[in-house]
């Protein structure tokens, strides 16, 4: 029983550390996503960000391919990291309840 508890405790520590790391990576990604608007035949880019519950459109004008790629990648990684972070949170809940039993952890 002790061995099993030890393994579960180690896994819980790993998951807690992992949660912090995913949150750190999410915070590092550039905020918002770029959208393209066509105005009078010309294409312009806007950065869409959420600020205090409100959606803001920040004018960016014409952006380079590099910047477009940067925001595209950031969007993909954000979705991936959020999904994995939610998995980690589920693991933490499960491990905490498995370890707790009737004793305080």
């Amino acid at each position: 029983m002790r061995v099993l508890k030890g393994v579960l405790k180690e896994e819980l520590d790993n998951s807690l550390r992992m949660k912090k790391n995913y949150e750190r990576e999410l915070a590092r990604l550039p905020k918002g996503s770029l959208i393209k608007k066509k105005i009078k035949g010309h294409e312009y880019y806007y950065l869409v960000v959420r600020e205090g519950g409100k959606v803001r459109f920040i004018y960016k004008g014409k952006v380079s391919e590099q910047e477009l790629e940067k925001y595209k990648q950031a969007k993909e990684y954000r979705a991936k990291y959020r999904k994995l972070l939610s998995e980690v949170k589920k693991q933490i809940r499960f491990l905490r309840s498995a370890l707790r039993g009737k004793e305080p952890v």
Partner: protein
Amino acid sequence: MEKSQYELCLEVLRRLDKAGVLKHIVLVGSWCMLFYKSYFASAEYAPILKTRDVDLYVLQPSAIGAKTDVPELLKDLGFVIGFTGSQGYIRLEHPELIVEFLVAEKGRPSDKPYPVPQLGVNAQRLRFLELLPATLSWRKSKTCR
């Protein structure tokens, strides 16, 4: 064990193989058991309980010629870099798997990590690890050796 965890482990090994790194690395620890399954195919054999840590023993860091950024190689699989405690060795973390790099500790004991710039990681030093390759077993998987 979940299938996704096994598949993820294979994908990590596959990518290391493709990058030409796997030949410098030996899979050690509890994840070996998984590959022993095929080795002991004729006998009744069930892999033991294991944690998420996949330990990769870097045989001779100085022998690795080309530089490979392993954290970048595995980034799109969802692995993030985790620095462990005050020692600062790198682990690549994913909810299903944690990839750790080990090197054999020689000489005076040290709790400092061992930088392996060829792989872009800091490895953990472990005493007597060099004894393991004496009983090395080569397994061939679907897409990597």
